[in-house]
């Protein structure tokens, strides 16, 4: 088979090639990262000083809502699926994904879902303004008309995720090259196998939650209405049964990426490979039985509070296994700090900060103080920004030479890292303090005692946001040219993807490699 590529726009619209689809996912995620990011800039501009300055409160609430939804469903998840598309077939020695046409559909639903989601901002009554968790009755009785469009956007995102996950599972279980046993798979493949299982298990539950919202809003059902025997708290249970595994859906592939990067630049094998696999599975299992720790203050029975506290802090065990394994991998390694490694090490440090605050909030009596404050905002941004986003950026620097055939600009890459790492801490660390002092989340105005830390946080936010434009420049520059990458790219890295030419040919592993 020749390395024939179809040309023009139809190449991208009709494509069944995992590399094309991976590229589409990554660009979609990148665009949505900037859309969601600009909403974050609006939020930080409003919070720069106390009082109302930039936007009206309803629009502010729309911004926090849409920022969260877009970053979760539009940026982080599609970026991870983009990595899966590009890397999983190359890592397991498969010619493509198991179901290439469905792979195309999984992607091409996303721009339509994104359009429907963002279009709500321009509708009468404004966009959804009830927070990304869309609790009833804010999202049922008191929500704007545009909420129904939001509901269907979530349905579409769910179709996309479920089809994508099914494809990934079928690919990993059925398409491995001869000799690639499960316990020989790169850890990134393992984390995605488990993530795909989580997606199939919980996206339908989210679809159920928004369907109940839809009928409560339009057809007179009483799922979330106490007058009819329902309960608004039921919404929270159903939502968080989805929502907690969802956060692992975003972080497990990040663990996978970091577990690929660190051994390469420590020039050692990953320490404790098997324990990494089991820890990932344990985290996934625990994610199904801890959901109510998001709702400690709704008035659960004490037995519930206790159970969810104990179950939650158990997650610290497998997570610590991972952090210790990364550290042990670096121990006495011949370390170098190329850009991907900087992001990976930054991930290990800063994700762990977010992990520790998570442990604090997992304890119910302590959580009563933190609930719905900026401490929560600081926590989940630490695990998502210097957590998931750092892993994504690190992964892009790690594999972009393989994708484009060119090396990125190392100097600019390092600059990008240091600017991001410093500004992200200025952005989110002060939020711990104002949260502990009692500043609630999702408000456009605040008491003057919180002014200094909010000011710092906003400045950090603007710098972090602007720095990502540098990233866009670096990526475009790398695509357009630069020093030619070798096939191995790095110093003797492990993995099948480094045995093929750079840039990776349009079709790879048409004849399966033999794994020893």
């Amino acid at each position, binding site marked *: 088979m020749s390395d024939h590529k*179809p040309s023009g726009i139809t190449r991208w619209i009709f494509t069944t090639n995992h590399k094309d689809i991976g590229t589409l996912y990554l660009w979609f995620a990148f665009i949505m990262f900037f859309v969601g990011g600009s909403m974050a800039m609006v939020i930080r501009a409003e919070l720069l000083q106390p009082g109302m300055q930039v936007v009206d409160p309803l629009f502010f609430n729309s911004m926090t809502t849409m920022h969260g939804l877009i970053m979760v469903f539009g940026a982080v998840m599609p970026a991870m699926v983009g990595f899966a598309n590009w890397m999983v077939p190359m890592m397991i020695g498969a010619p493509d994904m198991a179901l290439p046409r469905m792979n195309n559909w999984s992607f091409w639903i996303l721009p339509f879902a994104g359009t429907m989601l963002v279009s709500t901002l321009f509708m009468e009554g404004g966009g959804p303004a009830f927070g990304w968790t869309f609790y009833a009755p804010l999202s049922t009785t008191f929500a704007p008309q545009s909420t129904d469009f939001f509901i269907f956007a979530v349905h579409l995102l769910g179709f996309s995720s479920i089809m994508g996950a099914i494809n990934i*599972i079928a690919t990993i279980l059925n398409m491995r090259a001869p000799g690639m046993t499960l316990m020989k798979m790169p850890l990134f493949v393992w984390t995605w196998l488990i993530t795909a299982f989580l997606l199939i298990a919980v996206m339908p539950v989210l679809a*159920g939650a928004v369907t109940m919202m839809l009928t409560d809003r339009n*057809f007179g*059902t*009483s799922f979330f209405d106490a*007058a*009819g025997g329902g*309960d608004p708290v039921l919404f929270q249970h159903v939502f968080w049964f989805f929502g907690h595994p969802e956060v692992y859906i975003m972080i497990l592939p990040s663990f996978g990426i970091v577990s690929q990067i660190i051994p390469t630049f420590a020039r050692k094998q990953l320490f404790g490979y098997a324990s990494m696999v089991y820890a990932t599975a344990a985290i996934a299992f625990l994610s199904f039985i801890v959901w109510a720790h998001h709702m400690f203050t709704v008035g659960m029975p004490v037995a519930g509070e206790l159970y969810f506290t104990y179950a939650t802090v158990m997650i610290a065990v497998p997570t610590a296994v991972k952090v210790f394994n990364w550290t042990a991998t670096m121990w006495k390694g011949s370390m170098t700090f190329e850009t991907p490694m900087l992001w990976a090490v930054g991930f290990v440090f800063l994700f762990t900060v977010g992990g520790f605050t998570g442990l604090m909030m997992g304890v119910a009596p302590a959580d009563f103080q933190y609930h719905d404050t900026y401490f929560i905002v600081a926590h989940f941004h630490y695990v998502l920004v210097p957590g998931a986003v750092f892993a994504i950026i690190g992964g892009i620097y790690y594999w972009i030479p393989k994708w484009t055939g060119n090396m990125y600009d190392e100097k600019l890459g390092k600059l990008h890292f240091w600017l991001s790492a410093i500004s992200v801490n200025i952005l989110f660390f002060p939020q711990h303090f104002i949260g502990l002092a009692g500043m609630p989340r999702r408000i456009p105005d605040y008491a003057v005692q919180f002014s200094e830390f909010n000011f710092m946080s906003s400045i950090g936010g603007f710098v972090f946001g602007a720095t990502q434009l540098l990233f866009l420049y670096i990526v475009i520059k790398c695509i357009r040219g630069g020093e030619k990458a070798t096939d191995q790219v790095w110093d003797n890295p492990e993995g099948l993807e480094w045995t093929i030419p750079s840039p990776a040919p349009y079709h790879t592993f048409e004849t399966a490699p033999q794994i020893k």
Partner: protein
Amino acid sequence: MSTQSGGYYLPAPSHWPIVGSIGLFIMLFGFASALPGTSDGEMGNMTMMYIGMAIVAFMLFGWFGQVIGESESGKYNAQVDTSFRMSMVWFIFSEVMFFAAFFGALFYARQLSVPWLSGEGNNAMTNALLWKGYAGDWPTNGPASVGGKFEIMSAYGIPLWNTIILLTSGLTVTWAHWGLKKDNRGQLIMGLFLTVALGAVFVALQAYEYIHAYNDLNLKLTSGIYGSTFFMLTGFHGLHVTIGAIMLLVMLFRSMKGHFTAKNHFAFEAAAWYWHFVDVVWLGLFIFVYWLV
């Protein structure tokens, strides 16, 4: 351009997915535009939604038609077959989780929220101050008696018949499968015909039951949490029976056209799995929605 790579069939670029995306978008955008946004409003103009549905149907015909053509021309090897099987299993698992959300809502209401409204646990003041005198007996339309007094659907009338019908259809589809495996076309076609017919009778009886509920029992979708869970669970189940019956109908037509061999008939098995799945969901419904009230 289709490629045969190491035996694994890699399809050429396809326009069906984008047609499907456009269809879904128009359908859902149209539906959302027509929705009243309040529980007592009227539906608006649904034309856009129907156009979207037509596009989705067109895509399904075209895409499945192409896949059937590829399958019959022998392009798929055993590995492709395994991919299909895994995908169908995980798709059914995702459907199970969708129903789990609604069953979860039912159990939560029955075991927790309704008793709490009547003052159980640490909720004595909720009852005393907000819903005085509400006893919380199931079935209920809530302390405000939303939708007015209603009667429940007896388990021993149509629901019991429907249970028997679905269980029988599970047998007939297996009988059809046996026919296919021993190359007995007549048994295959007869088995499928009986299964589809039983499915149609099930749906018809379900429709009759709904009319009965609305006209005679005052049991409606708006009858509080009982009506909500009753109609949403049985309604989504009925929708899935309809989808499963359409799948089996396609298998019937394909069997009549001579498709499938005794060894190679994934599509038939996928439809049969789906049929057993709706069967099992029905047993859950019969027990927890109709029987244990």
